[in-house]
């Protein structure tokens, strides 16, 4: 048996990240609590370096390695950069929150970095096993992160729910994969496609449904969304920040790898399923969000609605549709991290700032951050010229181009319904009186990062062409 040394270069960012995370793990062991800042800084540096490595690895060529189980294509590079940047934002926003609650431990960062590692593997997966490997690496990290605040009953409950439901979903996903493997005899996504036409249709359909269930759970599409509101609300905001943002990018990648790379020939089948998921997600997410008074819960439902849009782009089955979805996923992650970042900013020891009422009169306390929050909310609602508008319009455009006009109409109508609960928060910020007069206390890095985040939402909204073109070109 000949052992051919695989080409390590395409996996350079992952290898680098793994190495440095292990190093940070060791270093953190020897750090005193008061010098925990070193772990924080090292984590940021690690992410920045990984992002740069991913960026320099960008090329229009598709490279595979490790016996085709690892793919490096333009989409992988871009998404990895996006994931790293978003998680950097997560870490920055989380820092003060963690300090205030006495959970400013190295584990948060290390688990977070391992999660990033998992996401990157998912993004580059070329094989059922790599997809599963990445997914589990991410999921296990997140279960642990949620449960980190051990004395909080609500966090433990959230972790428990997430873990059990996640296990079910993982089991289903594995089951589906095994069925597909059974009839095609291949775990390799690229080979899978060739085998689809000759395989048994019933088994393939079963396999497809189970696989989609796994994806939908990760994304949080209705009816596999039940975990999201509870987990978002139950988790410490520092962790909600994490689970609500970057993993959705990875989930999009997983959906793309499995359905498009692996099962393109079953497009007609999965399109039908995804349409159902998309419509249900947009409708249910937006409608239930209206009844929420807890901001984290509201964002959870809003995420479900956004997921409906991400799914809508993919289900068109066109290159441009994938590009639009990818754009949407990245934009969503930027907006979401900003939104939860605001909650983290306003919170302090003993005060979570996660109710809509807690944002009353924010404009009087801090006009600048009121403006940032307004930009984020307007963007989520899809108000031009903010970034979210372009994300929505590009997905809707592709749906229309694919002849799914009615689906686009559903998207627009539900977005209008959704605009209500976003605007309600804006109204509270600008027109209501503050509940108390406690000034906002936050360190410089979170202020800076949030400002950049908000301004980026506006600036990228004013000049969206470059980012859109980048995403669209990825698939052509």
């Amino acid at each position, binding site marked *: 048996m000949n052992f051919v040394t695989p080409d390590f270069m395409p996996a350079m960012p992952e290898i680098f990240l793994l190495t440095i995370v292990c190093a940070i793990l060791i270093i953190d062991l020897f750090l005193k609590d008061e010098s925990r800042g070193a772990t924080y800084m090292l984590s940021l540096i690690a992410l920045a370096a990984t992002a740069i490595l991913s960026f320099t690895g960008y090329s229009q060529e598709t490279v595979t390695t490790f016996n085709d189980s690892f793919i490096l294509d333009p989409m992988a590079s871009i998404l990895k950069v996006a994931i790293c940047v978003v998680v950097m934002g997560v870490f920055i926003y989380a820092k003060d929150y963690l300090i205030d609650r006495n959970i400013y431990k190295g584990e948060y960062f290390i688990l977070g970095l391992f999660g990033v590692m998992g996401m990157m593997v998912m993004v580059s997966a070329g094989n059922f096993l790599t997809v599963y490997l990445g997914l589990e690496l991410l999921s296990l990290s997140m279960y642990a992160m949620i449960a980190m605040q051990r004395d909080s009953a609500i966090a433990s409950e959230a972790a*428990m*729910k997430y873990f*059990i*439901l996640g296990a*079910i*979903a993982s089991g*289903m996903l594995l089951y589906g994969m095994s069925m597909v493997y059974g009839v095609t005899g291949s775990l390799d996504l690229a080979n899978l496609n060739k085998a689809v036409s000759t395989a048994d249709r*019933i088994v393939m*359909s*079963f396999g*497809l*449904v*189970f696989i*989609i*269930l796994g994806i939908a*759970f990760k994304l949080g599409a*209705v*009816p*596999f969304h*039940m*975990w999201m*509101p*509870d987990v978002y609300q139950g988790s410490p905001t520092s962790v909600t920040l994490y689970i609500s943002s970057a993993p959705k990018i990875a989930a999009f990648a997983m959906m793309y790898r499995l359905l498009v790379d692996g099962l393109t020939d079953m497009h007609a*089948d999965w399109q*039908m*399923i995804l349409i*159902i998921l998309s419509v249900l997600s947009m409708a*249910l997410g937006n*409608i*239930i*969000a*209206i*009844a*929420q008074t807890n901001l984290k819960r509201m964002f959870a439902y809003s995420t479900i609605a956004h997921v409906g849009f991400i799914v809508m782009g993919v289900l068109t089955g066109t290159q441009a549709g994938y590009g639009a979805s990818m754009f949407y996923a990245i934009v969503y992650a930027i907006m979401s991290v900003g939104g939860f970042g605001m909650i983290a900013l306003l919170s302090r020891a003993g005060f979570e700032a996660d109710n809509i009422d807690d944002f009353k009169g924010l404009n009087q306390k801090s006009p600048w951050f009121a403006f940032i929050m307004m930009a984020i909310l307007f963007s989520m609602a899809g108000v031009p010229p903010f970034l979210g508008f372009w994300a929505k319009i590009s997905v809707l455009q592709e749906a229309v181009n694919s002849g799914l006009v009615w689906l686009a109409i559903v998207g627009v109508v539900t977005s209008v*319904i959704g605009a*209500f609960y976003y605007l309600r928060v804006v109204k509270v910020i600008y027109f209501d009186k503050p509940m108390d007069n406690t000034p906002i206390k936050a360190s410089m890095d979170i202020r800076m990062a949030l400002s950049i985040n908000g301004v980026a939402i506006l600036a990228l909204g004013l000049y969206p062409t470059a980012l859109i073109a980048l995403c669209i070109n990825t698939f052509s």
Partner: protein
Amino acid sequence: MFENYSDSQVYLAIVLAPLIGSILAGVFNAYISRAVAHTVTIAGVAISFVLALFVFKYFAFDGAPTYNETVYTWLVSDGIHFEIGFMVDNLTSMMLVVVSFVSLMVHLYTIGYMHDDPGYKRFFSYISLFTFSMYMLVMSNNFLQLFFGWEAVGLVSYLLIGFYYKKESAIFANLKAFLVNRVGDFGFILGIAGILMLFNTLDYAEVFAAANSKAGATIELIPGTQWSMITVICLLLFVGAMGKSAQVPLHVWLPDSMEGPTPISALIHAATMVTAGIFMVTRMTPLFELSETALSFILVIGAITALFMGFLGIIQNDIKRVVAYSTLSQLGYMTVALGASAYSAAVFHLMTHAFFKALLFLAAGSVIIGMHHIQDIRKMGGLKKYMPITYWTSLIGTLALIGFPGLSGFFSKDSIIEAVRLSHLPGATFAYYAVLAGVFVTALYSLRLFFIVFHGEERMDHHTKEHLKESPWVVTVPLVLLAIPSVIIGGLTISSVLYGDYFNGVVFVEEAHNVLGHLKKEFHGPMGMVLHGITATPFILMLAGIAVAWLLYMKNPSVPGKIKQSFSLIYNIMDNKYGFDAFNEKVIAGGTRGIGHLLSKVGDLLIIDGIIVNGSAKTVAWVSGIIRHMQTGYLYHYAFAMILGMIALLVIVVY
């Protein structure tokens, strides 16, 4: 015109000088004194007056060719240019002189009339703005700018009628003027739309050049019937003129507009703005000449206005209202002239009327100042001895108005009557007798007013009488300055304006309608016309009117009361102004309010707000409230939902 300045700079200066004055007096209202306010506005108008004189000389005496240039292109859309531009020719230059002269007189007069008013600076700002708007209207070279000027003068008119904005009747009057003018302007803008549709341009010159070739165009307004497009356009444009120039039945706003201060009654509601309709039709002769239907319509409307509004002047007791009804009647004369294709006569009367009617209004204002703002003529009498200058200038104005031979009103009014006599359009006979009878009526109400105010018993109370004195020089000087053209301008200019070549190339008249061309053969100079006038029917009717007025209001002042009782039915009809106001108030305003109320209650509140907007919002909130309970918090429910979802998807995919 001037060596160092291009013509367009001169025209811009004319337009902008009063605008700058208006802005200074209006925007910086709080920062400037009253003296500064009236100085800048009067300076602005004076500059434009002087320049207007030069422009007039340039066209009337130097024979300059028509100026037609675009100053500024606002936008180009689908090949249609929306521009600001000037078209200046003999008609425009004459209008410029009339407008600027009357405006200047009114500005001066205002210093005296508004002396004690807290809104002094605001008033100056408004009248200068009006002057600017009127210039824009008369100097326009396209329909868009015409419409701008049209609306701008309407706006200022609205602001000035409601100048005493704390007075209920003034607010009612300006709302009424606004609404009635909406009706007219609606027709006007539809007419402009028709022009755009037919000619695909808004430029005068292009429209006029293409008018003949489009004469046969038709439009199907009601399915199955073809209407001449030109007729439709002309009628719509004339509806606009009816609103602005207060022709029956859109005249109702003008008497009420007397709620405004007297100077603007003179400037806007007598001399200039209300003649915009006359000017517009004259400007559009290449279009109107193509439609005999429209001309007939104009003729009849004008005749009705001329006669029946004159009747109402006889029974009014408010000094300004008498003059207002007289204005309506005179506008009717001008409109009749338009209908008879005697456009030059219409504009000629417009000019002479501007001078003597402004004079009469300002004289009325002078009386009002003397009487300490009492306007009821029943409380006046014998003012001759207290206010000699006002008396003599009023006499000149009155004689000019009734067409006393030799004065300017005689030349213009007699020309109109003669022109109508020669017209062969349907309705011309009716119009002829209406304007002829109008002479008698005019003499009657004018002299009635004159006798009651200046002669006879002194009916004012003791206190008023003690303070009765002649008005200050800022009031009397404009009176004298206006009295001069009221006497001489008619005889001086009739030869060239009416029968000369002054309007050659400006006014187009079809050979078949050319009544003035026929009249020209009978015209032997102003003196000849005066000599002929003394023996003609109108003169006899006028003398009859004077005699009746003298008999009724000087000799036997008790007779009018008896007549009133014997003919109470007719009196009541006239006292109710033929029921136009009541009709508008009850049927139109009431009906509109009713429909509005219905639409508001049913359409808006119930269907749109209630069912569609709030209803859907409530439904969503209700649904939301229900399904949020699906989120029970129990783990096994969640897992169950996942399994159910999976089964459902399996079923869908497999089948």
